[in-house]
């Protein structure tokens, strides 16, 4: 394991203010659920794939659930969120209905994109989730645009958030987006989900300095790096980041260090990393760590947590049933959405 992640422990107890408010407890509960929905959703998609029931490809983020859950829990529902190609957990945290997302993965008419987008284009503008995009870097520049609209409309308490990977931070578009958001002082929160690989390529092979937070420096933009496997650390940093961004001071960059346990996509043979490395990160599973914290601090009981997990599992199962029972889009639907 190269880069900064090697130092990270996923001790969720650090940095947490006491006492814990009712509101925070509720948020923890929500994050617990979101992380499980994401995990179960993706495990199920992986299984469906292995059975040949899913068309195309998909990018799973098993092991990265705390980044989406923690950051989006700190956002407000009116905030615009742009996700990544590895965005199921982001969509879930933003509040997408997993039924419709599963239906999309199974290419159904009831899918959140009517079966036209698929895993790489999951989006739901109704909840201000502008989705996954298949071209790395594009989300960042578009996110600057929603923030610009917000400013033009003088909507004060609405920020725009864009998630992007460590690898994507090397796209010219990402740099241009940071510069533009900075000079126009737009309310954009840049969230780099640093899982230390772009596909098979470790960040040390594509960046001379792997400290991604430094990339904010030329733009006079604050940056913070957090343990992305520690959902509470992510959450608290995100609350602060949102406060900063919403205050009108301009954009900020949050780097969330984590690890992708699943392969890059269905075609991944994991030839670029060792089993040991993967196993060691399974130990640092953000869900495990969060459970430990919640139980040790007597916030929730094992039973409560298990029950919530079970409910999430059921929801995914129902989503699958819903999806499978849904019709496919018909040819008549095809041309509907080309032009408005």
């Amino acid at each position, binding site marked *: 394991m190269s880069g900064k992640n090697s130092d990270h422990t996923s001790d969720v107890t650090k940095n947490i203010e006491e006492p814990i408010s009712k509101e925070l407890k509720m948020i923890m509960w929500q994050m617990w659920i979101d992380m499980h929905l994401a995990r179960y959703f993706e495990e199920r998609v992986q299984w469906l794939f292995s059975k040949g029931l899913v068309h195309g490809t998909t990018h799973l983020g098993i092991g990265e659930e705390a980044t989406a859950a923690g950051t989006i829990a700190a956002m407000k529902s009116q905030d615009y969120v742009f996700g990544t190609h590895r965005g199921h957990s982001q969509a879930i945290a933003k509040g997408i209905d997993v039924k419709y997302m599963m239906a999309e993965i199974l290419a159904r008419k009831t899918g959140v994109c009517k079966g036209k*987008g698929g895993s790489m284009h999951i989006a739901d503008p109704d909840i201000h989730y502008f989705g996954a995009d*298949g071209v790395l870097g594009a989300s960042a520049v*578009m996110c600057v*645009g*929603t923030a610009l609209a917000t400013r*033009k409309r003088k909507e004060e308490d609405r920020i725009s958030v864009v998630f992007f990977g460590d690898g994507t931070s090397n796209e010219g578009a990402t740099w241009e987006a940071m510069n*533009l958001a900075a000079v126009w002082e737009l309310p954009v929160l840049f969230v780099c989900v640093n899982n230390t690989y772009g596909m098979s390529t470790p960040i040390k092979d594509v960046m001379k300095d792997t400290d991604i937070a430094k990339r904010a420096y030329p733009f006079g933009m604050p940056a913070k790096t957090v343990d992305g496997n520690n959902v509470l650390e992510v959450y608290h940093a995100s609350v602060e980041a949102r406060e900063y961004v919403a205050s009108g001071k301009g954009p900020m960059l949050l780097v969330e260090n984590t690890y992708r346990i699943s392969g890059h996509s269905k075609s991944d043979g994991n030839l670029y990393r060792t089993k040991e490395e993967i196993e060691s990160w399974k130990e640092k599973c953000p869900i495990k760590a969060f459970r430990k914290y919640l139980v040790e601090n007597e916030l929730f009981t094992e039973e409560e947590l298990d029950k919530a997990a079970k409910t999430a599992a059921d929801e995914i199962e129902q989503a699958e049933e819903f999806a499978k029972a849904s019709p496919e889009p018909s040819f008549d639907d095809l041309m509907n*959405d080309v*032009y408005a």
Partner: protein
Amino acid sequence: MMKEITYAQAINDAMCEEMIRDETVFFMGEDIAEYCGAFGVSRGMLEKFGKDRIMNTPISEQAFVGAGIGAAMVGMRPIVELMFSDFMCVCFDELVNEAPKMRFMFGGKVKVPMVMRTPSGGGTGAAAQHSQSLEACLAHFPGLKVVIPSTPYDAKGLLKTAIRDDNPVMFLEQKTLYRTKGMVPEEEYTIPLGVADVKRSGTDCSIITYGRMVQMSLEAAELLMEEGINVEVVDIRSLVPLDHKTMIESVRKTRHVLIVHEAVQFGGFGGEIAGQIADSEAFYYLDAPIRRLGALSCPIPFNPNLEKAVFPTVEKIVAQVKSLL
């Protein structure tokens, strides 16, 4: 009431009127504020609308085109200027893979009402990277609309429609037409996209064309008339949507067709037009092959004589029409 204004002024007027009418319209691009754009099109707009609606951008085409898309996705109506149409190549992904596909990929849940204005074409000695006509590359992407006006009247009416359109529209202006003049109504008017305009009615041969080649074709038609050849000039005005019907009717009537565009002939949009004619009922009426006239297959040279040699000219148009009859 009509007034005579330039093509550049027509575009300026269209933008100003729409910005007054609809406060979600704003305008951004490189050096469009004080400098008024490389061709002075936005003269006076900064004074009228202020810095918040007339925004100079960094030289970051991906970022500001992308920002236009993002703003459009949440209900604004940005007009974005690219200083030269050749620069579409540095933000091509935003133009062809994001703006036009977003609605479809998201199952119809979003609209991208953005207009991308940009000066296109050669004839100004700006050489290989500042003189191209790249409309064919855009027209190939479903979801995008592509407009190229040839007169001040069309420019104003089409631009107003483009700004009100709920889809991304590429509005390709013709550099060498900016200073040309034409009559434009004082009253408000719009022109629908997708309706060709028969700029000259004739009986012997159809010239199907657009952009600055319209003027050249009209000149050629005058010369040909002197020799008793009565040419019809069809200005398609928009490549997407394309007015198939008007083209076909014209060719059916004249039984001869020359397609003219300034873009490189090979792989140009003329191929689409030729293809549509060759697979229509007009095919059965043709008395001669379908001819295309576009630029030669080379990058655009700086030397003015070479540049002229590369592009279609009035003489070449005349010669091609004659060769068909």
